[in-house]
């Protein structure tokens, strides 16, 4: 019997040579196996920009209450991000989340739950660090997050 055929020749007089079929399927299998990639599960944060304003100024500070502004700087020497809320530097995520919540709750008590958390990060700060702060805000059920932009250059400036 030439090659490998299916079935018994006695029952089926026309033997089908399946060897080329197996070869092709094997090649296809190898191709798809090599090109196969498990997808990373992705999600997103909705961050709708305000429709009626551009880069607005910062929130008006009322009384002694400070706005909720998380400042982020890039430490070139240590290659890490330094985070600061008001005057306090915070390394720990849980501590920062607690401080953001505390600061935001002060605004909620003043009947201003819409007060945003402003992320004021330096351009060199890794995106990962910004996402982490956004994540902490979302964990505290704070949906309104603003990104501070650099002030536009004055008119006529080169």
């Amino acid at each position, binding site marked *: 019997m030439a090659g490998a055929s299916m079935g018994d020749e006695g029952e089926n007089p026309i033997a089908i040579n399946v060897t080329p079929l197996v070869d092709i399927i094997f090649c296809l*299998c190898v191709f798809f196996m090599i090109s196969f990639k498990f997808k990373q599960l992705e*999600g*997103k*944060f909705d961050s709708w*920009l305000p429709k009626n304003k551009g*880069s607005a100024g910062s929130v008006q500070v009322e009384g002694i209450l400070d706005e909720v502004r998380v400042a982020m700087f890039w430490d070139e020497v240590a290659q890490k991000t330094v985070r600061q809320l008001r005057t306090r530097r915070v390394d720990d995520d849980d501590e920062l989340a607690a401080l953001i919540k505390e600061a935001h709750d002060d605004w909620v008590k003043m009947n201003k739950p819409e007060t945003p958390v402003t992320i004021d*990060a330096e351009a060199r700060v890794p*995106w990962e660090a910004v*996402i982490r702060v956004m994540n902490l805000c979302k964990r505290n059920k704070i949906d309104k997050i603003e990104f501070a*932009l650099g002030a536009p250059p004055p008119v006529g400036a080169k």
Partner: protein
Amino acid sequence: MSKRRKVPTIKEDVTCNLIPMVDIMFLLLLFFLLGADMSQREAAELVLPTASEIKENEKVKTDDPTTTVNIQHAQGGDLGKCPLNANNGYCRLPDHWAVVIRGREVPRELLKDQLKAEADETLETDIDPDAKVRLSARKIIIRADKAAPYGDVNKIIEVCGLVGIYKIEVGAAVPPPK
């Protein structure tokens, strides 16, 4: 007188039954065929930052105008391999980071024109004409590498605001289960 032993002859052919193998190969082929993603991917290969509070992607409607803007480390080419990025460091060189839309790198000076063209393709229709604002119905998904400089993401958000795109989503990865 010596007796000669008769060597038994094998009459039946020893054939390998390939049918189970073909069956398994077909199943494997089917699995890889269905699992393979042959569509033109808007999403570039990059490491997204992880976030536990994100909304998982629902099925994207085909009529939903969406543009994915990727910010990735530009490796290879004239720049060569960046040792800092290759060792999971934070490369801060602005030239090493590229904005990629539909697989093509968009120079920073052309980013506004590109996004404006995208925005103008689908404008919001239900806007009060007295408001005199021009808003785009297009949604922008920003997929930035976890090590990408925030300044690049900020720039895209700023340009989106300038060209009338207000629907912005930032991509993140679901953290692996503990």
